[in-house]
Structures are given as C-alpha cells and as structure tokens.
C-alpha cells in the first residue's frame, strides 16, 4: 500500500521514541492494543506542576500508520494541558497523515492511547491527593 509522505516521514524518523519512568508520579502511561491487526502502543506523558505536558514518549509495534500516528501525537501533545489533549480526535490524526480508510483504526489506537495515558496520570495523582488529605 502507498503511504503518504507524512506517514513515511514519521515512520522513517519517528519522534520521541522511548520510555519514561512509569513509577514517576508525574508520568502517565497508556497501553492500548488493536486486536484486528495485533498492534500494540505505549504512550507516556510527563506533566509539570502547572499540569502542562512537558515530555512524551512512545513505543509502538505495528504497521507504518500506527507508528506514524503515535509519533505525530507525541509532537502534538507536548506543551498542551491534559484537557487540551483530550480534545484530539482520531479524525484529526487521520486527516493530518492522510490515512486511507483501512488504516483509520491506527489513528483510533493513538487517540485511545492519549486517553489511557491521561486516565493513568489522573488516577495516580488522585490517589496522591487523597494521601495528602489523609495526612
């Protein structure tokens, strides 16, 4: 299948590949997978005290579109607040990368990964707040 130039660019030069410390309280980890294609995606975000995402890393096993989708979102979410990144839709990703219909699920995976990472971070910080209140 012919990939768009943008997909090829992210695929050949993926941005922000790697891992953050998942035990760091300011790091949220989102792990998602697509059963239909067997792709696995891990997206991690690190927020500063103002709640802004200052770093993002990903690791994806899957096709070029899945890698490009996760690479693109790490670029998009840096410097944004948690509320802002929750507004990113899979259709935005698919449009930016000119994904064909059969590859739309790769962008769904990336959107779900953002949501999972934010949910993980909120769960972590929520429990931290409770501890502080209890103390």
């Amino acid at each position, binding site marked *: 299948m012919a990939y768009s130039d943008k997909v090829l660019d992210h695929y050949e030069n993926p941005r922000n590949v790697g891992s953050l410390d998942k035990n760091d309280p300011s790091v949220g980890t989102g792990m998602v*997978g697509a*059963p239909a294609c*067997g792709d*696995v995606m891990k997206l991690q975000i690190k927020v500063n005290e103002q709640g802004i995402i200052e770093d993002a890393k990903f690791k994806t096993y899957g096709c070029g579109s899945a890698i490009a989708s996760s690479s693109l979102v790490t670029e998009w979410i840096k410097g944004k607040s948690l509320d802002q990144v929750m507004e990113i839709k899979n259709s935005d990703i698919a449009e930016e990368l000119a994904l064909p219909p059969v590859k739309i699920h790769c962008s769904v995976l990336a959107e779900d990964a953002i949501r999972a990472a934010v949910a993980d971070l909120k769960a972590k910080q929520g429990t931290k707040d409770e501890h502080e209140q209890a103390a």
Partner: protein
Amino acid sequence: MPAQFALDMALLDQHYRKLQAEVHPDRFAAASPGERMQSMQWATQANEAYRTLKHPTTRARYLLALHGVDTEEENNTAMPADFLMLQMEWRETVEEAYDERNIAALDASLKQMREQAQALEQKLVAILDQQQAWQEAAGIVRKLSFIDKIRADVEHKISKLEDE
C-alpha cells in the same frame, strides 16, 4: 454438530467430508446450469463453514455472533495492561531473534505463544460452553486474535530465514 466450543475434530472432519461429497460440483456435471451454480455455492459454503469451525478463534467468534455478541476486534483497544506488556515483550524478543537470525529462539517464542493460546482455548471451553459468559469470552477472543497475528508473523519470519 452441537453449537459449542469444545469440538470433536474427527466428527467435524466426518461431517465435512460427507457434506462435501454431497454438494461437490463434479456430481452436478450433467445437471442444469442453475443446479451447477447452486452446487458451487453450497461447496463454497461448506468450505467456509469448515474453516470457521476448525480454527478455535474463528469458531469462538462465530459462536459469539450466534448469541449476538460482537467481539469488537476493530475498535476495542482496552486490553489488560499485563497482556499488552507481554505482547510488547514478545515483539521485542522476536525482533531481536530475527535480527540475529536465531531460528531456535524464534521456535522457542512460537512454543510459548502456542501454550498461551492453548490455555486461553481451555478457558473458552468453560466460559462459552458452561458459564455462557459472552462478554468475558469476547475478551479472550480479542487476546487470541493478538496471539494469532504474532504467531503468523513469527512463522513467516522463520520460513524466510529458512529460505535464505
């Protein structure tokens, strides 16, 4: 055939051969074009049914569909974290072994995957045939779907290395 996950493979083979013999297009060589067309369709359907029932993942998916349950393999991405971690580890191991052209290591991974799949299939017997816990079964089908994909990929890699 009973509509259940636990399968008597010999019985399935027996039914399939009988059905195939009945609808085989060769038997309709002298029949009208309409009947010949019909027999072709039946033969295709019999093949499809056999393939669906023979493979555990497609059999489970089909049984769930009979109960109106969609396995959501296209859009349900929320797999258990430990399962996804294992998938990542498998991918890493397989990638390394392939780069090192280590067929023995690939075979070992394949064996691990087969064992995992078999354990899940065992679980499906209880969950589908006894407990009829459809949603839980759909989750297992999604896992099996992952394992099927990576197994096919490893098998492909092994045969590529063997051909070189």
